[in-house]
């Protein structure tokens, strides 16, 4: 609620200084972001229209839509878009479901909970490159147990490395991503869950509501807005998050696990085709903006109706 604050008049307000102060505070940040992020984005958009391959220094110049047409005709680019959708949504759904499960388990206190939380949230703190390496070692039948277990359970025909099989390799980074992302959802949802007034459950208990009914009619409506917002933000974040893929498969075997952002990195870092990498980046940026706009529209419509 807005409260009226009576401001004490300052002795001799030095008008200009007071006016400039906030700008003084924000300008270093804006300057840094401008020079290291926004100007490079503009340069990147410019690169997308030139032929710019590092080992073809003589063939360097304005190329019109060449790079964009190349993307349109590049099957790996289309595959990477499909993979981005698969990667993003399967990671997100499982992170969210398991995260919600963990949050629900943690909402009623138990002895040793502090230590338990410190341990169970630990994957969040593990750097992505280490998570990626760790999981690729676990999938490697030479050194890790997972392939052997999967074969024993009949999930795999032989104890082979799933990261080496183009048809299922993407599952590897997705599992690593789920492992890494559960704590994020558990922590944010736990915060929301603990904010639900206890009286609501007590009243529901007295009215004889079952646990499921309590979850369905009290808990879920209460946490739904948090779920929607965090899920929307995470979608964009996960779509951009290629470290795990880069470390675990390098986008392979045979580009089968490229998501668009790892493919951009491959094109720039391995193939040294800066123009093409820039063009795909611009396309990815456009698609993400489109997604964000649609989601914001949907959200504002939701807010109107509820």
């Amino acid at each position: 609620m807005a409260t009226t604050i009576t401001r004490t008049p300052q002795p001799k307000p030095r008008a200009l200084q007071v006016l400039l102060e906030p700008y003084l505070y924000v300008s270093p940040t804006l300057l840094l972001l401008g020079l290291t992020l926004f100007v490079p984005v503009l340069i990147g958009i410019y690169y997308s229209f030139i032929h710019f391959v590092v080992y073809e220094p003589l063939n360097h110049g304005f190329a019109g839509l060449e790079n964009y047409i190349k993307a349109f005709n590049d099957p790996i680019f289309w595959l990477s878009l499909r993979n981005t959708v698969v990667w993003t949504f399967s990671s997100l759904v499982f992170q969210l479901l398991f995260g919600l499960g963990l949050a629900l388990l943690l909402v009623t206190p138990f002895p040793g909970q502090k230590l338990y939380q410190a341990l169970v949230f630990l994957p969040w703190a593990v750097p992505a490159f280490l998570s990626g390496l760790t999981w690729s070692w676990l999938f490697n039948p030479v050194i890790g147990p997972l392939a052997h277990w999967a074969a024993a359970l009949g999930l795999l025909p032989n104890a082979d490395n799933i990261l080496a099989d183009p048809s299922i390799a993407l599952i590897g980074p997705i599992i690593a991503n789920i492992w890494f992302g559960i704590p994020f959802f558990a922590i944010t949802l736990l915060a929301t869950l603990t904010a639900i007034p206890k009286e609501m459950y007590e009243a529901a208990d007295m009215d004889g509501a079952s646990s499921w009914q309590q979850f369905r009619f009290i808990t879920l409506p209460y946490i739904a807005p948090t779920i929607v917002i965090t899920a929307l933000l995470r979608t964009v974040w996960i779509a951009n998050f290629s470290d795990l893929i880069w470390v675990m498969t390098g986008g392979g075997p045979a580009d089968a696990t490229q998501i668009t952002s790892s493919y951009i990195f491959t094109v720039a870092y391995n193939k040294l085709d800066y123009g093409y990498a820039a063009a795909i980046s611009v396309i990815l940026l456009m698609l993400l903006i489109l997604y964000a706009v649609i989601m914001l529209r949907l959200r504002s419509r939701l807010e109107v109706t509820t």
Partner: protein
Amino acid sequence: MKRKPLWLGARAVALTGYLVFALFPLYWIVKIALTPNKSLYSEALLPFPTSVTFDNFTNVFANTPFPTYFMNSVIVSLSTAFFATILASLTAAAFSRYEFRFKNTIAFILLLTQFFPLVIVLVPLFRVLVGIGLVDNLWGLIVVYTAINTPFATFLMKSFFDAIPRELDEAAMIDGCTRIQALWRVILPLTLPGVAATLGFVFTGAWSELLFSLMLINSESQKTFAVGLLSFIQKGAVNWGQMMAASTIALIPVILFFGFIQRYLIRGLTAGAVKG
């Protein structure tokens, strides 16, 4: 609430399941790091090594470039945390304590940086840094990481500034402080836990970064831990024990910082943590 024993049992099983899933991969790394090389393959699938050795760790320290990588990562992450927290504190103070034109626009710009694909600036930044001689240089990384982490750190610091009642500013000014003095002498000291948490989050984010580090660093002497570990693996001569030992060492700083920022996790994550 009365709960049936069956329910309690199921809950205990589920809690155990989560814990095993969370810790098993990390346990496996440490396990292999501690297994002697000669029994590595014969015992690869045993849950416990039959004998334990620290040889891999001493080897990593004595015979590999990992100590250099480790120090580089420490320098980069600490410097990034330092600079990003200063910039973020200034910006957050402005957001929390002042009304000014374009405030919302600037906040929106900061938010935007959290969501656009950073790969788009990878090549242009590389070229710019080549131009000013900051490529293959830890300072180049520090500048880039500071830029990447400052927006998120700003939102985090703002939440700490916002938690301090404005009446305190006013009281300080009645006591004769100027606006600036009130802010930096009275309010900032109260946000010190927030400053510490922000340092911790940014450190963790910088320690984890991989792609810029791959793109911007080439020479052995400047490699960060992430790049060093990957290049070590790509060299082909796979020494499992040493790699796992190196990984275990890389985990130590983040675990320390994680313990330290535990209390602020919720705030950090809702401020849109860099690292997710």
